[in-house]
Protein backbone atom coordinates (compact mmCIF):
# COMPACT_ATOMS: atom_id res chain seq x y z
CA UNK A 1 0.00 0.00 0.00
CA UNK A 2 2.59 2.51 1.07
CA UNK A 3 5.62 3.74 -0.76
CA UNK A 4 8.11 4.50 1.97
CA UNK A 5 9.17 2.77 5.17
CA UNK A 6 8.08 5.87 7.09
CA UNK A 7 4.67 5.63 5.63
CA UNK A 8 4.50 1.94 6.55
CA UNK A 9 5.51 2.73 10.08
CA UNK A 10 2.83 5.39 10.28
CA UNK A 11 0.21 2.89 9.10
CA UNK A 12 1.45 0.31 11.57
CA UNK A 13 1.13 2.74 14.40
CA UNK A 14 -2.41 3.53 13.45
CA UNK A 15 -3.24 -0.15 13.10
CA UNK A 16 -1.70 -0.79 16.53
CA UNK A 17 -3.88 2.01 17.90
CA UNK A 18 -6.98 0.51 16.32
CA UNK A 19 -6.19 -2.84 17.90
CA UNK A 20 -5.54 -1.34 21.33
CA UNK A 21 -8.68 0.75 21.10
CA UNK A 22 -10.72 -2.35 20.25
CA UNK A 23 -12.47 -1.01 17.18
CA UNK A 24 -11.41 -3.77 14.81
CA UNK A 25 -13.66 -6.72 14.12
CA UNK A 26 -13.61 -10.07 12.40
CA UNK A 27 -10.79 -10.84 10.00
CA UNK A 28 -9.11 -7.46 10.44
CA UNK A 29 -8.93 -7.98 14.15
CA UNK A 30 -7.71 -11.55 13.91
CA UNK A 31 -4.98 -10.52 11.46
CA UNK A 32 -3.81 -7.68 13.70
CA UNK A 33 -3.81 -9.93 16.78
CA UNK A 34 -1.87 -12.60 14.95
CA UNK A 35 0.67 -10.00 13.93
CA UNK A 36 1.02 -8.67 17.47
CA UNK A 37 1.69 -12.22 18.61
CA UNK A 38 4.61 -12.74 16.23
CA UNK A 39 5.95 -9.31 15.26
CA UNK A 40 7.78 -7.82 18.23
CA UNK A 41 8.09 -4.24 16.95
CA UNK A 42 4.39 -4.20 16.14
CA UNK A 43 3.56 -5.68 19.55
CA UNK A 44 5.58 -2.87 21.12
CA UNK A 45 3.49 -0.31 19.27
CA UNK A 46 0.34 -1.96 20.58
CA UNK A 47 1.72 -2.00 24.13
CA UNK A 48 2.54 1.66 23.78
CA UNK A 49 -1.01 2.48 22.83
CA UNK A 50 -2.34 0.38 25.68
CA UNK A 51 -0.20 2.41 28.03
CA UNK A 52 -1.45 5.69 26.57
CA UNK A 53 -5.06 4.61 26.82
CA UNK A 54 -4.39 3.35 30.33
CA UNK A 55 -3.57 6.93 31.22
CA UNK A 56 -6.93 7.92 29.81
CA UNK A 57 -8.71 5.31 31.95
CA UNK A 58 -6.74 6.38 34.99
CA UNK A 59 -8.10 9.88 34.64
CA UNK A 60 -11.47 8.67 35.97
CA UNK A 61 -12.52 10.42 39.16
CA UNK A 62 -11.92 8.13 42.15
CA UNK A 63 -14.88 6.66 44.04
CA UNK A 64 -14.35 4.62 47.21
CA UNK A 65 -15.74 1.11 46.75
CA UNK A 66 -17.80 -0.51 49.52
CA UNK A 67 -15.96 -2.71 52.01
CA UNK A 68 -17.67 -5.85 50.71
CA UNK A 69 -15.54 -5.76 47.55
CA UNK A 70 -12.39 -6.25 49.59
CA UNK A 71 -14.05 -8.95 51.65
CA UNK A 72 -15.14 -10.76 48.51
CA UNK A 73 -11.62 -10.46 47.13
CA UNK A 74 -10.13 -11.97 50.25
CA UNK A 75 -12.62 -14.81 50.05
CA UNK A 76 -11.86 -15.40 46.39
CA UNK A 77 -8.10 -15.22 46.57
CA UNK A 78 -7.18 -16.40 50.01
CA UNK A 79 -9.95 -18.73 51.15
CA UNK A 80 -11.74 -21.67 49.67
CA UNK A 81 -14.09 -20.37 47.04
CA UNK A 82 -17.61 -20.51 48.36
CA UNK A 83 -19.64 -18.86 45.68
CA UNK A 84 -18.40 -20.38 42.48
CA UNK A 85 -20.77 -19.74 39.61
CA UNK A 86 -20.89 -23.40 38.67
CA UNK A 87 -20.18 -26.75 40.09
CA UNK A 88 -20.99 -25.71 43.61
CA UNK A 89 -23.42 -28.53 44.06
CA UNK A 90 -20.62 -30.93 43.26
CA UNK A 91 -18.02 -29.19 45.33
CA UNK A 92 -16.75 -31.11 48.29
CA UNK A 93 -15.97 -27.89 50.12
CA UNK A 94 -19.54 -26.74 49.79
CA UNK A 95 -20.97 -29.91 51.27
CA UNK A 96 -18.37 -29.97 53.99
CA UNK A 97 -19.36 -26.43 54.86
CA UNK A 98 -23.04 -27.38 54.90
CA UNK A 99 -22.35 -30.33 57.12
CA UNK A 100 -20.37 -28.07 59.44
CA UNK A 101 -23.71 -26.97 60.74
CA UNK A 102 -23.25 -23.35 61.70
CA UNK A 103 -26.97 -23.18 61.08
CA UNK A 104 -27.78 -24.52 64.53
CA UNK A 105 -26.43 -21.41 66.15
CA UNK A 106 -28.33 -19.13 63.84
CA UNK A 107 -31.48 -21.17 64.27
CA UNK A 108 -31.31 -20.40 67.96
CA UNK A 109 -31.11 -16.72 67.14
CA UNK A 110 -34.29 -16.85 65.12
CA UNK A 111 -36.21 -19.02 67.52
CA UNK A 112 -37.65 -16.01 69.24
CA UNK A 113 -38.74 -14.43 66.01
CA UNK A 114 -40.52 -17.55 64.84
CA UNK A 115 -42.03 -18.39 68.18
CA UNK A 116 -43.78 -15.08 68.40
CA UNK A 117 -45.13 -15.33 64.88
CA UNK A 118 -46.34 -18.93 64.91
CA UNK A 119 -49.41 -20.36 66.51
CA UNK A 120 -48.87 -22.91 69.26
CA UNK A 121 -49.03 -26.55 68.34
CA UNK A 122 -46.44 -28.76 66.75
CA UNK A 123 -42.84 -27.69 67.30
CA UNK A 124 -41.97 -25.33 64.47
CA UNK A 125 -39.43 -26.34 61.87
CA UNK A 126 -36.99 -23.61 61.00
CA UNK A 127 -33.91 -23.10 58.91
CA UNK A 128 -31.42 -20.28 58.84
CA UNK A 129 -30.01 -20.07 55.33
CA UNK A 130 -26.54 -18.61 55.42
CA UNK A 131 -24.01 -17.52 52.90
CA UNK A 132 -20.30 -18.26 53.19
CA UNK A 133 -19.37 -16.61 56.44
CA UNK A 134 -21.74 -13.91 57.56
CA UNK A 135 -25.03 -14.26 59.42
CA UNK A 136 -28.19 -15.75 58.01
CA UNK A 137 -29.40 -14.32 54.76
CA UNK A 138 -32.78 -16.06 54.72
CA UNK A 139 -34.91 -17.47 57.47
CA UNK A 140 -37.45 -20.13 56.68
CA UNK A 141 -40.08 -21.84 58.71
CA UNK A 142 -41.95 -24.90 57.61
CA UNK A 143 -45.52 -25.27 58.75
CA UNK A 144 -46.14 -28.98 58.38
CA UNK A 145 -49.79 -28.56 59.36
CA UNK A 146 -50.72 -26.30 56.48
CA UNK A 147 -48.00 -27.62 54.16
CA UNK A 148 -46.39 -24.24 53.71
CA UNK A 149 -42.89 -22.88 53.90
CA UNK A 150 -42.41 -19.18 54.57
CA UNK A 151 -39.11 -17.53 53.69
CA UNK A 152 -37.98 -14.18 55.07
CA UNK A 153 -35.26 -12.30 53.25
CA UNK A 154 -32.87 -10.68 55.72
CA UNK A 155 -30.21 -9.54 53.35
CA UNK A 156 -31.33 -9.01 49.78
CA UNK A 157 -28.80 -10.01 47.16
CA UNK A 158 -27.61 -7.10 45.10
CA UNK A 159 -27.75 -9.08 41.89
CA UNK A 160 -31.01 -7.80 40.46
CA UNK A 161 -30.60 -9.53 37.12
CA UNK A 162 -31.42 -12.88 38.68
CA UNK A 163 -34.15 -14.24 40.92
CA UNK A 164 -33.66 -16.31 44.07
CA UNK A 165 -35.08 -19.83 43.88
CA UNK A 166 -35.65 -22.06 46.88
CA UNK A 167 -34.65 -25.74 46.87
CA UNK A 168 -35.05 -28.58 49.29
CA UNK A 169 -32.42 -31.29 49.45
CA UNK A 170 -33.31 -34.41 51.38
CA UNK A 171 -31.48 -37.66 52.01
CA UNK A 172 -31.00 -38.49 48.34
CA UNK A 173 -28.98 -35.32 47.85
CA UNK A 174 -31.08 -34.21 44.90
CA UNK A 175 -32.29 -30.59 44.92
CA UNK A 176 -36.02 -30.18 44.32
CA UNK A 177 -37.37 -26.77 43.44
CA UNK A 178 -39.84 -25.14 45.78
CA UNK A 179 -40.16 -22.18 43.48
CA UNK A 180 -38.93 -18.67 43.02
CA UNK A 181 -39.06 -16.36 46.03
CA UNK A 182 -39.31 -12.61 46.39
CA UNK A 183 -36.11 -10.64 46.59
CA UNK A 184 -37.40 -8.72 49.60
CA UNK A 185 -39.74 -9.33 52.48
CA UNK A 186 -41.31 -12.72 52.82
CA UNK A 187 -42.69 -15.37 50.52
CA UNK A 188 -45.11 -18.14 51.44
CA UNK A 189 -44.85 -21.24 49.31
CA UNK A 190 -47.36 -24.08 49.34
CA UNK A 191 -45.38 -27.31 49.35
CA UNK A 192 -46.23 -29.72 46.54
CA UNK A 193 -47.70 -32.90 48.01
CA UNK A 194 -44.74 -34.96 46.82
CA UNK A 195 -42.27 -32.74 48.66
CA UNK A 196 -44.14 -32.46 51.95
CA UNK A 197 -42.65 -35.58 53.50
CA UNK A 198 -39.08 -34.63 52.57
CA UNK A 199 -39.31 -31.02 53.67
CA UNK A 200 -38.68 -32.02 57.24
CA UNK A 201 -36.10 -31.79 59.98
CA UNK A 202 -32.68 -32.78 58.67
CA UNK A 203 -33.31 -31.73 55.08
CA UNK A 204 -31.46 -28.76 53.66
CA UNK A 205 -33.02 -25.64 52.22
CA UNK A 206 -30.90 -23.72 49.74
CA UNK A 207 -31.31 -20.64 47.58
CA UNK A 208 -29.69 -20.30 44.18
CA UNK A 209 -29.72 -17.38 41.76
CA UNK A 210 -31.57 -18.19 38.58
CA UNK A 211 -32.67 -16.44 35.41
CA UNK A 212 -36.00 -14.61 35.57
CA UNK A 213 -38.80 -17.14 35.89
CA UNK A 214 -36.63 -19.67 37.68
CA UNK A 215 -34.23 -22.41 36.68
CA UNK A 216 -34.92 -23.48 33.10
CA UNK A 217 -33.66 -27.00 33.74
CA UNK A 218 -35.35 -27.98 36.96
CA UNK A 219 -31.93 -28.09 38.63
CA UNK A 220 -30.02 -25.18 40.11
CA UNK A 221 -28.09 -23.47 37.32
CA UNK A 222 -26.74 -20.44 39.15
CA UNK A 223 -24.62 -19.94 42.25
CA UNK A 224 -25.97 -21.11 45.60
CA UNK A 225 -26.08 -18.00 47.72
CA UNK A 226 -27.31 -19.50 50.97
CA UNK A 227 -28.18 -22.82 52.54
CA UNK A 228 -29.15 -24.24 55.91
CA UNK A 229 -30.59 -27.34 57.56
CA UNK A 230 -34.16 -27.55 58.75
CA UNK A 231 -34.36 -28.21 62.46
CA UNK A 232 -36.96 -28.37 65.23
CA UNK A 233 -36.93 -25.69 67.86
Amino acid sequence: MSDTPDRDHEDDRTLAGELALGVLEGEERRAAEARAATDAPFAALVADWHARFGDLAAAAAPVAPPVRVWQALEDTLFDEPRREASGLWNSLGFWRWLAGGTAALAAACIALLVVVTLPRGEPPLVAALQSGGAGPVFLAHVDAGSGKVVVHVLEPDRDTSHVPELWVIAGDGVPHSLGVINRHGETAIALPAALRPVTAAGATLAVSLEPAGGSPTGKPTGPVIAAGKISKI
Partner: protein
Amino acid sequence: MTSAESIESLLARVALRDRGAFELLYQRTSAKLFGVCLRILSERAEAEEALQEAFVKIWRNAGQYSQARAGAIAWMAAIARNQSIDRLRARRRGAEDIDVAAEVADGRPTPEAEAVAAADRRLLHDCLDALEPGHAAAIRDAYFGGYTYEALARRGGVPLGTMKSWIRRGLAKLRECLER
Protein backbone atom coordinates in the same frame (compact mmCIF):
# COMPACT_ATOMS: atom_id res chain seq x y z
CA MET B 1 6.46 3.10 57.17
CA THR B 2 5.17 1.43 54.07
CA SER B 3 2.63 4.13 53.28
CA ALA B 4 5.19 6.04 51.25
CA GLU B 5 5.99 2.99 49.14
CA SER B 6 5.41 3.51 45.45
CA ILE B 7 2.68 1.68 43.58
CA GLU B 8 5.38 0.14 41.39
CA SER B 9 7.14 -1.29 44.40
CA LEU B 10 3.88 -2.62 45.85
CA LEU B 11 3.15 -4.31 42.53
CA ALA B 12 6.58 -5.91 42.58
CA ARG B 13 5.88 -7.32 46.04
CA VAL B 14 2.43 -8.50 44.97
CA ALA B 15 4.14 -10.40 42.15
CA LEU B 16 5.93 -12.30 44.93
CA ARG B 17 2.57 -13.14 46.51
CA ASP B 18 2.90 -10.68 49.36
CA ARG B 19 -0.63 -10.37 50.76
CA GLY B 20 0.20 -7.38 52.90
CA ALA B 21 1.44 -5.52 49.85
CA PHE B 22 -1.73 -6.50 48.02
CA GLU B 23 -3.88 -5.05 50.77
CA LEU B 24 -1.89 -1.81 50.72
CA LEU B 25 -2.13 -1.69 46.96
CA TYR B 26 -5.87 -2.15 47.22
CA GLN B 27 -6.18 0.61 49.78
CA ARG B 28 -4.21 2.97 47.64
CA THR B 29 -5.74 2.25 44.24
CA SER B 30 -9.21 0.75 44.63
CA ALA B 31 -11.01 4.10 44.58
CA LYS B 32 -9.28 5.06 41.36
CA LEU B 33 -10.07 1.72 39.75
CA PHE B 34 -13.64 1.76 41.00
CA GLY B 35 -13.97 5.15 39.32
CA VAL B 36 -12.87 3.53 36.08
CA CYS B 37 -15.41 0.68 36.43
CA LEU B 38 -18.24 3.05 37.31
CA ARG B 39 -17.47 5.21 34.36
CA ILE B 40 -17.99 2.29 32.03
CA LEU B 41 -20.65 0.28 33.86
CA SER B 42 -23.49 2.47 34.97
CA GLU B 43 -24.82 -0.22 37.29
CA ARG B 44 -23.04 -0.07 40.62
CA ALA B 45 -23.34 -3.74 41.51
CA GLU B 46 -21.79 -4.66 38.20
CA ALA B 47 -19.01 -2.13 38.67
CA GLU B 48 -18.23 -3.76 42.02
CA GLU B 49 -17.96 -7.15 40.35
CA ALA B 50 -15.70 -5.75 37.67
CA LEU B 51 -13.51 -4.12 40.30
CA GLN B 52 -13.20 -7.41 42.12
CA GLU B 53 -12.29 -9.21 38.91
CA ALA B 54 -9.74 -6.55 38.09
CA PHE B 55 -7.98 -7.02 41.41
CA VAL B 56 -8.03 -10.79 41.00
CA LYS B 57 -6.20 -10.23 37.70
CA ILE B 58 -3.81 -7.80 39.29
CA TRP B 59 -3.00 -10.33 42.01
CA ARG B 60 -2.39 -13.03 39.43
CA ASN B 61 -0.61 -10.96 36.79
CA ALA B 62 1.37 -8.45 38.82
CA GLY B 63 4.54 -10.12 37.57
CA GLN B 64 3.76 -8.98 34.05
CA TYR B 65 3.79 -5.36 35.01
CA SER B 66 7.49 -4.82 34.50
CA GLN B 67 7.00 -5.66 30.85
CA ALA B 68 4.33 -3.08 30.40
CA ARG B 69 5.23 0.35 29.15
CA ALA B 70 2.65 2.07 31.24
CA GLY B 71 2.76 3.78 34.58
CA ALA B 72 1.61 1.42 37.32
CA ILE B 73 -1.71 3.16 37.78
CA ALA B 74 -2.31 3.28 34.04
CA TRP B 75 -1.56 -0.44 33.83
CA MET B 76 -4.02 -1.20 36.61
CA ALA B 77 -6.62 1.20 35.22
CA ALA B 78 -6.40 -0.51 31.85
CA ILE B 79 -7.12 -3.85 33.55
CA ALA B 80 -10.17 -2.36 35.27
CA ARG B 81 -11.28 -0.87 31.98
CA ASN B 82 -10.89 -4.20 30.17
CA GLN B 83 -12.84 -6.13 32.80
CA SER B 84 -15.61 -3.55 32.65
CA ILE B 85 -15.71 -3.58 28.86
CA ASP B 86 -15.90 -7.40 28.87
CA ARG B 87 -18.96 -7.17 31.08
CA LEU B 88 -20.47 -4.45 28.96
CA ARG B 89 -20.02 -6.50 25.81
CA ALA B 90 -21.43 -9.62 27.41
CA ARG B 91 -24.44 -7.64 28.56
CA ARG B 92 -24.86 -6.22 25.09
CA ARG B 93 -24.65 -9.65 23.49
CA GLY B 94 -27.42 -10.71 25.85
CA ALA B 95 -29.67 -7.78 25.05
CA GLU B 96 -28.83 -6.51 21.63
CA ASP B 97 -30.92 -3.39 21.72
CA ILE B 98 -30.94 0.35 21.63
CA ASP B 99 -31.77 0.70 25.31
CA VAL B 100 -28.41 -0.65 26.33
CA ALA B 101 -26.61 1.67 23.98
CA ALA B 102 -28.57 4.57 25.42
CA GLU B 103 -27.74 3.52 28.95
CA VAL B 104 -24.07 3.35 28.10
CA ALA B 105 -24.17 6.72 26.45
CA ASP B 106 -25.61 8.15 29.66
CA GLY B 107 -22.79 6.63 31.65
CA ARG B 108 -20.17 8.39 29.62
CA PRO B 109 -17.61 10.52 31.36
CA THR B 110 -18.39 14.10 32.04
CA PRO B 111 -15.79 16.71 31.18
CA GLU B 112 -15.63 17.59 34.88
CA ALA B 113 -14.78 14.04 35.89
CA GLU B 114 -12.05 14.09 33.35
CA ALA B 115 -10.57 17.33 34.53
CA VAL B 116 -10.41 16.12 38.12
CA ALA B 117 -7.77 13.45 38.00
CA ALA B 118 -5.57 14.51 35.13
CA ALA B 119 -2.98 15.82 37.54
CA ASP B 120 -0.14 13.37 36.96
CA ARG B 121 -0.47 12.39 33.32
CA ARG B 122 -2.41 14.73 31.16
CA LEU B 123 -0.69 14.31 27.88
CA LEU B 124 -3.23 12.08 26.21
CA HIS B 125 -6.03 14.33 27.38
CA ASP B 126 -4.43 17.43 26.03
CA CYS B 127 -3.94 15.68 22.76
CA LEU B 128 -7.49 14.37 22.63
CA ASP B 129 -8.75 17.85 23.30
CA ALA B 130 -6.77 19.14 20.37
CA LEU B 131 -8.56 16.79 17.97
CA GLU B 132 -11.70 17.69 16.11
CA PRO B 133 -14.50 17.16 18.63
CA GLY B 134 -16.18 14.45 16.57
CA HIS B 135 -12.98 12.45 16.25
CA ALA B 136 -12.14 12.76 19.93
CA ALA B 137 -15.67 11.75 20.91
CA ALA B 138 -15.48 8.68 18.68
CA ILE B 139 -12.20 7.62 20.30
CA ARG B 140 -13.54 8.12 23.80
CA ASP B 141 -16.70 6.27 22.86
CA ALA B 142 -14.68 3.38 21.50
CA TYR B 143 -12.49 3.19 24.59
CA PHE B 144 -15.07 3.68 27.31
CA GLY B 145 -18.02 2.14 25.49
CA GLY B 146 -16.25 -0.85 24.00
CA TYR B 147 -17.64 -0.16 20.54
CA THR B 148 -16.22 -1.47 17.29
CA TYR B 149 -16.11 0.57 14.08
CA GLU B 150 -19.44 -0.78 12.98
CA ALA B 151 -21.20 -0.02 16.24
CA LEU B 152 -19.66 3.43 16.38
CA ALA B 153 -20.83 4.20 12.86
CA ARG B 154 -24.33 2.99 13.68
CA ARG B 155 -24.46 5.04 16.84
CA GLY B 156 -23.08 8.14 15.19
CA GLY B 157 -25.33 7.75 12.16
CA VAL B 158 -22.38 8.00 9.76
CA PRO B 159 -21.13 5.59 7.08
CA LEU B 160 -18.62 2.97 8.24
CA GLY B 161 -15.90 4.44 6.02
CA THR B 162 -16.37 7.85 7.57
CA MET B 163 -16.06 6.48 11.10
CA LYS B 164 -12.92 4.57 10.16
CA SER B 165 -11.30 7.64 8.69
CA TRP B 166 -12.27 9.74 11.73
CA ILE B 167 -10.63 7.34 14.12
CA ARG B 168 -7.60 6.67 11.96
CA ARG B 169 -6.98 10.36 11.49
CA GLY B 170 -7.61 10.89 15.18
CA LEU B 171 -5.08 8.23 16.12
CA ALA B 172 -2.48 9.63 13.74
CA LYS B 173 -2.95 13.12 15.18
CA LEU B 174 -2.75 11.78 18.72
CA ARG B 175 0.49 10.08 17.86
CA GLU B 176 1.97 13.27 16.46
CA CYS B 177 0.80 15.25 19.43
CA LEU B 178 2.13 12.74 21.97
CA GLU B 179 5.55 12.85 20.38
CA ARG B 180 5.76 16.55 20.18
